């Protein structure tokens, strides 16, 4: 009897699991699939558009829009895990959503693969709502392929307690930064001014952006590769000195080892994006009140920030109702009302109107009550416009990782590493069948 009961319950559980699986499949089928664009009324008035995104609070933004726009309904699907990797395949297979959130680095590769819709005719009025650097990322010639949603301007997070105790001023130039590194090291032998992490290419590229450099540019009908440009080499020189004088800690970013290093007071500054403080707070709660934020150092002392991360809303190829989709996208990212909903979700917005909002500029307890987003908002305005995303963004990042790993192992210099990454990138661009300007 007991045995049967157990067997029965097992069967029931199996059935339930099967049912769950089925319902999961069917629900995921109708929610995110791109062809769910349905025209309910015969006159074709009402459309429902699917939108895949990950920014926090997008559900609330969509709810607000849907309440006010009965004829353009948005069906939101929250992306998690590796959903981002599915997008290119989904577009190629014609099952992509109507609107999708994406990081900026691969936009050119997707354009080359005919995955994105040129939306330039819908963006004429919103262009000025964004800092020039953000708009630059989505503009290729006369075509526009996305609308910036959030952004990652960079600033210098520093240990105010250590700087104060060592009597060191917060550096505004890289020369001062080197001096500060030496002074800190003298006072605290186990403290380094920064970490070098070969695995975090964004840490490097944001400094190249801040220095007005770019890995790629467009030269007529050819890609110009400039991974080892003057601007890059100038940054490389600083880090070579820091490395040679053992003023930086070599540790891979995001690893348990890295956070242990931060908690052990080994790292005194981190020059990174606006989304980084939240991660710092989460992983190093014990250091509350010991950090502050200032503008990142530059070579001439004038504010010039970099960008790391940031995302865009794009319209995949195959979307039927581009005009309606763009109405929503423009409202969400460029209107005061839409950006306000993004701010409610905790997004660091790309739009200038958001950078001035009191919702963004609130004191941060972890940073001793400093309004750190004011620093980041100012940084956003000072990002140079020289950066052009290229067709092999991810491969170039990997090349830089591999080459920088050899640098921290003492096998080559940063300058040589950049030359090697340059050669690798040129080969990769050519391998895609594209032409490279020599």
């Amino acid at each position: 009897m007991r045995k049967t009961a157990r067997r029965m319950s097992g069967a029931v559980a199996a059935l339930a699991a099967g049912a769950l699986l089925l319902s999961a499949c069917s629900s995921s089928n109708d929610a995110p699939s791109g062809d769910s664009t349905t025209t309910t009324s015969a006159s074709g008035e009402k459309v429902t558009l699917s939108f895949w995104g990950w920014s926090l609070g997008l559900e609330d933004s969509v709810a607000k829009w849907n309440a006010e726009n009965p004829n353009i309904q948005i069906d939101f699907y929250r992306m998690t895990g590796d959903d981002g990797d599915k997008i290119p395949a989904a577009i190629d297979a014609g099952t992509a959503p109507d609107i999708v959130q994406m990081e900026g680095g691969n936009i050119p590769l997707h354009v080359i693969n005919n995955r994105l819709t040129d939306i330039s005719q819908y963006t004429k009025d919103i262009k000025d709502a964004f800092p020039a650097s953000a708009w630059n990322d989505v503009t290729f010639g006369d075509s526009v392929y996305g609308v910036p949603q959030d952004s990652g301007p960079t600033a210098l997070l520093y240990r105010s307690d250590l700087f104060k105790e060592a009597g060191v001023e917060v550096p505004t130039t890289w020369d001062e930064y080197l001096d500060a590194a030496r002074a800190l090291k003298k006072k605290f032998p186990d403290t380094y001014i920064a970490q070098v992490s070969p695995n975090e290419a964004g840490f490097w590229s944001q400094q190249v952006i801040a220095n007005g450099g770019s890995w790629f540019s467009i030269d007529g009908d050819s890609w110009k590769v400039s991974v080892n440009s003057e601007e890059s080499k100038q940054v490389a020189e600083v880090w070579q000195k820091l490395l040679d004088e053992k003023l930086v800690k070599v540790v891979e970013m995001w690893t348990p080892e890295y956070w242990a290093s931060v908690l052990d007071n080994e790292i005194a500054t981190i020059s990174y994006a606006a989304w980084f403080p939240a991660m710092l707070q989460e992983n190093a709660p014990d250091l509350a009140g010991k950090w502050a934020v200032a503008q990142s150092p530059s070579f001439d002392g004038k504010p010039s920030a970099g960008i790391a991360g940031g995302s865009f809303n794009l319209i995949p190829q195959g979307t039927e109702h581009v005009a309606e989709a763009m109405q929503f996208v423009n409202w969400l990212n460029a209107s005061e009302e839409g950006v306000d909903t993004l701010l409610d979700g905790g997004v660091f917005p790309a739009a200038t109107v958001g950078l001035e909002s009191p919702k963004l500029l609130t004191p941060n307890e972890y940073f001793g009550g400093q309004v750190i987003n004011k620093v980041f908002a100012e940084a956003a305005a000072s990002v140079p416009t020289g950066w052009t995303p290229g067709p092999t963004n991810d491969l170039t990042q990997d090349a830089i990782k591999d080459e920088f790993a050899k640098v921290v192992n003492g096998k080559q210099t940063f300058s040589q590493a950049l030359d090697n990454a340059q050669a690798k990138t040129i080969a990769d661009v050519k391998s895609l069948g594209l032409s490279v300007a020599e």
Partner: protein
Amino acid sequence: MTKTADKSARVARRAVSGGLRLAPYMFLVPFVVLFVVFMVVPIFIALYKSFFSIERSGLGFGGSNNSIFVGFDNYIQAFQNHEFIKSFGRVLLFAVIQVPIMLAFALLLALLFDSAVVRFKRFFQLSVFLPYAVPSVVAALLWGFLYQPKVSPIVSILSHLGVNAQFLSPDMVMWSMINIVIWSVTGVNMIIIFSSLQAVPRDIYEAARIDGAGEIRTALQIKIPMVSGAVMLTTLFSIIGTFQLFNEPQVLRSITSNISASYSPNMGIYQATTVGGDPNMGSAMAIILGLATFVLSLVVSVATNGKKSTGKKKGGK
């Protein structure tokens, strides 16, 4: 109730045997369908794709992106890719080090479990086998923790003993990975060898004992030769496994850049296909890897078969 059931079963059986004998094929269908859809078809798709390339020019914007037949161009490019060729050398070295060590452990453990020396046999057998139940990604993550100096108990114990362990340094990282693979797969290889030992007729041991052979001599001169077939089988599988190396280096790469993006052939294929967006090139590389594995397996199996037959001849004398 049983009677009627019996009868109807018998009737059914007769019906089937008299008919087309569909039952065996029906049982095979699920396997064959899945095998064809997920193994055979993809191989042919990859082979087909490997002879094509996407037609592009200039910046690549607004092109037609048509596939054009390029013959063996992708293969030639793959062979000219130094990193890809080097990755074969790397996994070969990996196999040369890892496979013998692992098999020695597996064989030793199998012999121990087969002998009368070990107590709590079931418990230890399970303990040795258990790591195999840990998915390799999880295993790499676990060991990844143990390799990071500031969070690793192993490193801290070693440093108390005066040893400065750098598990993730460029010189050590391959050994660290070999350690993970050995930890993962020794158990299952031990089981294969052990089951082969169990199949050896016991009277052979008895005869040996009567002839005055001790445990060690029996192990060396009877047991090991008797299971050489199983050992060769595990060698073959291990070599194939090493050539497919992907999970361990890919996971460890997130904590150390001393593993390059194209460390193993499979990582290079992933790099070309997924990261670089060139599935045609990736297909050509995958076909090369498949062929290389096939050839190597063939070489190993021919070499071992040769050995076996000479062994038999000797035995025959």
